[in-house]
């Protein structure tokens, strides 16, 4: 008996002692401001970041050339004290702040930025978001063309030869498209000026004859050599004396291929944050961990316990440290919605962005500390256009008309989400989506389905609606499945997969209908449209449309494409009139404006095709929401512009630099 008791006591003591050892001293003191950050950041290396949770932390510890002013989210001077933009909008000259330093005391110079931006494009880094600044001269060439040249000259040429041998009498266009897709030719040849290659990529109908294949094959070496040359020049010069370069220690020059109205916003984006060359070169793989990291932002990374918390502390070397309101921040990687809400309700965190149990949205929305507003995100369903009945536009339209979006936003999501009939969220500066009323029309839907060959759903196999595992997605999928079942007589099942399987199913095209969402990378309609080009990496629906592809290509390079632009007019003269505007334009500034107008019109036409063809069903535009402690100041769920107007915080960005706590020194 005594031995047993002793044993129990001993193991109790050991357990408590071990537990005690795992509570580290550094986090026992609560931070000034604590928030739920969703998933654990994969990395804090700005070059390798891909998501919002990572971006929140990275933007707190690093500072780009510009930073976002919290109240307006307009770019204001950050590491650069000022800048000039050339009249043609193609050259930016940044003057760096002489008092900006890294957290180890070294000055932040123009060379640091030039090196960081070169690193972002370096093919060896493999940065997913490198493309976001591909409008800088040589950036795209440096980032991609070396790989392209190698692929075109090697494996692609070989595969094409094999294809030609196999199909010496030519082949069906569908087989050709499969080849294009399998080898990612669209990505590889994007932006080619070779007419043969351009035409072959856009082929939608008929047969590809042997001589056409031979022409493609003959064009490849030239294209490869051309890209190799571009790459070599870019590798020699990008970040050194062209594209982006330091004119002197405090002057950074950036040259753009085409004027980009949102370029200053990009200078605040996490991918363009500077990295400390002197540390990265010593610890290339783990320089961003607490022991080694050197940063230039308002906060420093004090501690990072994976799965537990990230602790940020005010940087004493930051030039604007007097403007930083918080001495310390705890970033909690909590993924479970219930746990997150419980932490907020008990006052253990001050900010809960979004991730609360979706069933509780109504009682939560009544609370004074709840905020919500429209977001730059579209919620939509991909339709697999390779499978019946979705291969038939009438089938897709039938589905579209059988869904009651109003009901979904009113009774399921319940936060004032806007039902969507198009794909680009409202609020893009200067852009107006094509007119497309949200409507539900069951009679029309049934008629279309019957026309597509499935009257009353008869003869149709079971349709699956795939969503990634999450409560909110599940509800919408189940409601839509039920609506399709009852309205069209189809046999529909909603089923889920966890994230990686879900991605794999999408990329392999193994689904009928799948839920998706798209967050705009930047404030421009292009970010919602260019992914739908034929065989684009994120298209995944099997849908392709020649005119759509050309519109997107033309929009990416209005001036380079201008010769063939007249053909793209839909007949209403809208493209033609803007094209004439561009041709008439006198000085550089006018030309820039006319070019921008033409570009937006091209994108609008592309969206009109999307809305008509419906490879995707837009469902609604997101509302971003969350809970924030009323004592938090400097947190703007609605932005106030200098002209007094108020606009939504579309990207749900809340710079931590501006946040302060009203409770002051009060003990917790």
């Amino acid at each position: 008996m005594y031995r047993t008791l002793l044993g129990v006591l001993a193991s109790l003591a050991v357990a408590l002692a071990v537990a005690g050892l795992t509570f580290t001293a550094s986090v026992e003191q609560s931070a000034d401001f604590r928030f739920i950050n969703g998933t654990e950041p994969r990395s804090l290396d700005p070059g390798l970041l891909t998501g919002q949770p990572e971006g929140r932390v990275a933007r707190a510890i690093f500072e780009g050339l510009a930073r976002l002013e919290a109240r307006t989210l307009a770019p204001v001077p950050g590491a650069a004290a000022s800048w000039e933009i050339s009249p043609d909008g193609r050259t930016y000259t940044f003057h760096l702040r002489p008092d900006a330093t890294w957290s180890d005391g070294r000055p932040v110079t123009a060379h640091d930025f030039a090196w960081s931006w070169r690193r972002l494009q370096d093919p060896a880094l493999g940065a997913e978001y490198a493309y976001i600044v591909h409008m800088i001269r040589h950036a795209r060439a440096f980032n991609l063309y070396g790989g392209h040249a190698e692929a075109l000259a090697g494996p692609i040429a070989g595969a094409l030869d094999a294809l030609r041998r196999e199909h010496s009498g030519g082949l069906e266009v569908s087989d050709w498209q499969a080849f294009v897709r399998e080898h990612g030719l669209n990505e590889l040849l994007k932006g080619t000026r070779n007419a043969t290659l351009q035409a072959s990529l856009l082929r939608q109908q008929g047969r590809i004859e042997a001589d056409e294949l031979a022409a493609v094959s003959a064009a490849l070496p030239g294209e490869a050599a051309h890209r190799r040359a571009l790459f070599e020049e870019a590798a020699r010069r990008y970040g050194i004396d062209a594209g982006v370069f330091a004119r002197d220690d405090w002057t950074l020059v950036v040259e753009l291929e085409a004027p980009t109205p949102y370029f200053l916003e990009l200078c605040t984006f996490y991918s363009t944050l500077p990295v400390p060359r002197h540390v990265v070169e010593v610890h290339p793989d783990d320089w961003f961990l607490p022991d080694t990291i050197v940063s230039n932002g308002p906060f420093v990374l004090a501690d990072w316990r994976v799965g537990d918390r990230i602790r940020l502390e005010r940087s004493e070397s930051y030039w604007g440290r007097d403007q930083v309101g918080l001495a310390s921040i705890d970033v909690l990687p909590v993924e479970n919605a219930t746990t997150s809400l419980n932490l907020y309700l008990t006052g253990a965190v001050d900010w809960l962005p979004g991730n609360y149990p979706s069933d509780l949205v109504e009682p939560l929305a009544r609370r004074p500390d709840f905020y919500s507003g429209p977001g730059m995100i579209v919620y939509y369903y991909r339709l697999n256009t390779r499978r019946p009945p979705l291969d038939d536009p009438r089938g897709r339209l039938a589905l579209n008309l059988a869904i009651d979006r109003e009901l979904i936003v009113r009774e399921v999501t319940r936060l004032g989400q806007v039902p969507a009939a198009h794909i680009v969220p409202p609020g893009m500066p200067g852009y107006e989506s094509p007119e497309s009323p949200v409507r539900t029309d069951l009679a029309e839907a049934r008629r279309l389905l019957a026309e597509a060959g499935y009257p009353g759903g008869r003869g149709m196999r079971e349709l699956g609606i795939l969503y990634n595992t999450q409560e909110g997605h599940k509800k919408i999928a189940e409601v839509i499945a039920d609506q399709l079942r009852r309205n069209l007589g189809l046999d529909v099942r909603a089923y889920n997969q966890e994230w990686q399987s879900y991605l794999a199913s999408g990329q392999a095209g193994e689904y009928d209908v799948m839920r998706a969402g798209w967050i705009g990378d930047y404030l421009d309609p292009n970010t919602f449209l260019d992914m739908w080009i034929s065989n684009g990496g994120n298209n995944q629906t099997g849908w392709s449309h020649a005119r759509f592809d050309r519109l997107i290509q033309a929009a990416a390079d209005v001036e380079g494409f201008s010769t063939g632009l007249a053909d793209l007019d839909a007949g209403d003269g809208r493209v033609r009139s803007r094209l004439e505007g561009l041709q008439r334009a006198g000085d550089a500034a006018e030309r820039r404006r006319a070019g921008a107008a033409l570009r937006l019109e091209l994108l609008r036409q592309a969206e009109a095709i999307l809305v008509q063809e419906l490879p995707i069903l837009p469902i609604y535009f997101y509302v971003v929401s969350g809970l924030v402690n009323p004592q938090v100041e400097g947190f703007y769920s609605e932005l106030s512009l200098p002209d007094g107007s108020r606009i939504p915080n579309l990207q749900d960005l809340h710079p931590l630099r501006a946040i302060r706590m009203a409770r002051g020194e009060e003990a917790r």
Partner: protein
Amino acid sequence: MSGIEIASLVAGLLGVGATAWLSGRAARIVGALCLAALVFGLTRALLGLAGAGGLAAGLCALAVWRFPGLVLRRVAFAVPSLVLLIYATTLLMYKAPGNPFAGERAATPAVEQALRAHYGVPESATEFFAIYLRRLVMEGSLGPSIKVQGRTVEELLLPALPVSMALGLLALTLACALGIGLGVLAGLRPNSAVDHGSMALALIGISLPNFVIGAVLLIVFALGLGWLPVAGWGGYPHVVLPAVTLALPYAAYIARLARSGTLEVMQEDFIRTARAKGLSEPAVVLRHALKGALLPVVSFLGPAAAGILTGSFVVEVLFGVPGMGQWFVKGAINRDYSVVLGTAIVYFTLVTAFNLFVDLAYAWLDPRVRDAEAR
């Protein structure tokens, strides 16, 4: 699955099975060699080639000379098993849809190739296995995590392991104390109110998933009364709810085992003898009955410990505890291959070690088993 993969799997299984064939002396030698290999892998990074080699050789000699046969036999079994486990898990992971490099925005093939090379994750499962095993033995490293960049798997698991161990040990202790107490009380007075009451309590513990019990505790003690924090890990108050939640089902099982053990032992002749000798009832219970009640409990401890360790992740998710459980689930869901393998290895080792420990304890409690097991 390719022919080579199936053949390798079968060969691996046979290899593991073959360790049963080893004679006593052969088992000593093989076990000692395996132990040396383990120690070499573990200390290689710390001590360098010569240091680790020396240590391993020394330990090997010591093991052949002095270690109990039971221990060496288990080690001789565990090391080939680990290799097989790594291979089989690798195959399963590679067969599952998706890969760790897929993101919402499709990566270009060049980017994916660069990442695969950087993390040592080629497209063939067998190649990955070779790279992984080589790194494990030669560098003593579990490899880099793919989803938590800049860190190796051991850097992720080492801080998490003590958290889970502490939580598990605490839960196990609680479960034993509660279970044995209730069970013995119930067993001493079968069919009394005490018996029915404690068994009913125990049955509730088994009848609901522990995340329901945990949620109810959470609502009452954390959200309602505000006595305890709702989630996190940073002080003793954080430990209470997860430990209790984790302990309850096991306390229930243990109570039932202890009850039937007590029932059985109270009918044995030696108890009657003890009573006849004039020992007081408490003395009979403490000296003799408890030991009988403990035997089935001890043999349950091995599986229970394994269950608590591996079953804790639901509780860890519910209470936001930064333990091993999160890696267990996240690793698989994110297809973070090296994290999956790392957790599998750690769990397998822990479970095997714990079973060994329990067997040793069992042998200590019951000499008959000692002779049978030692062989």
